[in-house]
């Protein structure tokens, strides 16, 4: 005799980092947002109020790594507190949906006596009581190995592919460019599927967030260049890459990134740059940036996340999403 669960419902909880995305996911799944909220107290500590029973339910907490120096760590703590609150409330399974994984770039011991912060993040999530993680375009897919719980690393690639195919039907003129060597694999895979050429830019860094020298590998003369990367942070790289490509005879340059972090004076840089357009997914809240930067376009990724949640919940394979877009 097998044990069957009497109730089997999805509960979606939104953190304060990106309520719009959580709402979009909810709309796609036709599920209401769960009445569990995090609030900030006067002494800067966070507190989680649980206003609904979640006993024996599948919990999905949507929280992304955003907010800059003011809020990023607050959102991380909020997520941990929410996970623990659900654990305390006897949830069956807790899945953290973290489109932009925080601390993803501190993924190795590049100097002596530094923490591997991505690993610390992984430990924190597991310590809090997380059973499963869904994320999008991890900076290094090896981060999955930092966890001893399953991690589903989704790709924005199918959505990006679709965007390029719709907007640039004449693929002969298109050239995909990777702004750094690390992203070459990502761009090569995309170029394969589009059957276009790709070039790459080699950059040398002296300090974090500062790029010193760049060289272009490949011929871009007369082409429409599309820079593809996993994230746009201060946008220094993208703007410099755009200049370099135009110097080398590119017709026009645009950029497609998964995570639009746009920290510091990124918006100002973009507005003054030679990038014709910059496209990113809504893995980060972009409300203000959209108003300030007219060149910004957004690809909705909520469909992919919602479908992943649905498949995960029903025990179906998620790998379909690695190559296909959900409508």
């Amino acid at each position, binding site marked *: 005799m097998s044990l069957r669960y009497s109730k089997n419902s999805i509960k979606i909880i939104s953190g304060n980092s990106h*309520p719009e995305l959580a709402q979009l996911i909810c709309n796609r799944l036709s599920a209401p947002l769960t009445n569990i909220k995090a*609030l900030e107290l006067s002494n800067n500590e966070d507190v989680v109020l649980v206003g609904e029973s979640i006993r024996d339910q599948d919990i999905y907490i949507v929280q992304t790594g955003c907010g800059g120096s003011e809020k990023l760590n607050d959102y991380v703590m909020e997520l941990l507190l929410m996970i623990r609150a659900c654990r305390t409330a006897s949830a069956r399974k807790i899945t953290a949906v973290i489109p932009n994984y925080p601390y993803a770039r501190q993924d190795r011991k590049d100097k002596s006596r530094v923490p591997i912060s991505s690993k610390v993040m992984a430990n924190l999530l597991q310590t809090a009581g997380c059973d499963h993680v869904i994320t999008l375009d991890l900076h290094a897919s090896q981060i999955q190995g930092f966890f001893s719980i399953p991690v589903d690393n989704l790709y924005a690639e199918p959505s990006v592919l679709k965007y390029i195919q719709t907007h640039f039907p004449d693929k002969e003129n298109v050239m995909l460019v990777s702004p750094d060597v690390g992203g070459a694999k990502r761009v090569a895979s995309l170029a394969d599927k589009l059957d276009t050429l790709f070039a790459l830019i080699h950059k040398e860094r002296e300090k974090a967030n500062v790029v010193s020298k760049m060289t272009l590998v490949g011929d871009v003369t007369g082409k429409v260049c599309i820079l593809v990367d996993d994230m746009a942070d201060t946008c220094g790289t993208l703007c410099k890459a755009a200049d370099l490509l135009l110097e080398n005879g590119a017709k026009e340059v645009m950029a497609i990134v998964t995570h639009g972090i746009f920290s510091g004076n990124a918006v100002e840089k973009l507005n003054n740059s030679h990038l014709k357009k910059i496209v990113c997914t809504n893995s980060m809240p972009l409300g203000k940036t959209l108003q300030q930067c007219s060149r910004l376009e957004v690809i909705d990724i909520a469909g992919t996340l919602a479908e992943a949640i649905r498949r995960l919940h029903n025990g179906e394979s998620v790998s379909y999403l690695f190559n296909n877009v959900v409508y």
Partner: protein
Amino acid sequence: MRDIVVFSGSSNRGLAERICDNLGLLPGEIELKKFANGETSVRLCDSVREKDVFIIQSGSGKVNDNLMELLLTVSACKMASAKRITVICPLFFYSRQPESPASKKGIPFISKKDKHEFLHSTSSVPCCASDSSKLHNGVSVKSVLDHNATTCEDISEQHRHHPYKTWVAQSGTLIADLLVGAGADHIVTMDLHDPQFQGFFDIPVDNLFSKPLVQHYIVNYVQNYKDCVIVSPDAGGAKRAAAIADSLSMQFALIHKERHQRSTEKPVTAIGLGSCALAPTASTDNLIITSANDGQSVASTIDDSSNTSCAGENVVATTMLVGDVQNKTCIIVDDLIDTGATAMRAARLLKEQGCSYVYVIVTHGIFSDAALEKVRACDAIDQFVTTNTVEQRSHIKQYGTADGKGLEVLDVSRIFSEAIRRINNGESISLIYDQGW
């Protein structure tokens, strides 16, 4: 001192410097910064291989930033082969999680008893706006739930199926687990709000006391201290205050705060997560929800709550003083001050009862949400004394010294440096519980 390295987090460098001065060593060199996207970055510049590492970080200011910084530092030490990692938190992180936090206006966000009551009333009787006055509770609930339920039947139906008491998740074990998970081997803290917090850890936790310092202050700086009265501003801190009164053989008084529902049936307006009504707050000092939070959903919740005009009248808060303070000097003793509401209310009550001079001695001076100005402006408080478990340098400056009423800060660094010395040497530290140093 053998193989010892002391690192300071960014929350309380002043205290860390003093501790290192007392120990006769230089603080370990550490690089703490943030990347452009807000991620904290830590790099230890001194070797910690096979060393006894102490990390000083207070749970004040931007608490979450400081906690992340601490966790990353602990992990960095662990990864760099430190022999033992001791975390020194003069003020512990998330040490005080209230059962019911309050909104800006001091109204608690949820109340278990009332939530239950009105749910009961909505489910047992058909609620209609035109119904008799008995159904006030049900009516006001409707006004809030209107957007997702159109008919009264729907509401009562909903509540019949989902009667649920909103509750606040307690974070104590999580914080303990995070620190242990990051690699901490030992925790040292001071005047824990909940002594039970120690039980959340599976590693040794040394809870030091500021009591010897406070006693020292009273004996040396309070005139005729034998005639003064030690006052606990609420029942929760009675034990702490009574201990001081006992060891100095002074008189003791207690302020008791009673909050009960007024019998007249005023409608209770539900807000945010559920009902908004008043309940006794377990915390010594109200924690309030700040509007600084940029989450939209939260902001709207706050607005709702400030519009609940009825909620404030619905409760009678009686404050009772147990003990005689007529023409006496009173010393209010508490473990922490956050918004300052408790201390100011207590001081005013004492003055009403004929007390001549009020000292307030508080271990952790957090002073959030403009509390410092309020305390400064409060006539009832004559002298405010706190310790440097939380960085006080900016507070002192802000408080000023006009009309001889400066903020007095007791230095706890000697207690901590002695604890570090003893832990490093493997000596007993129970001696400093009573002795101080």
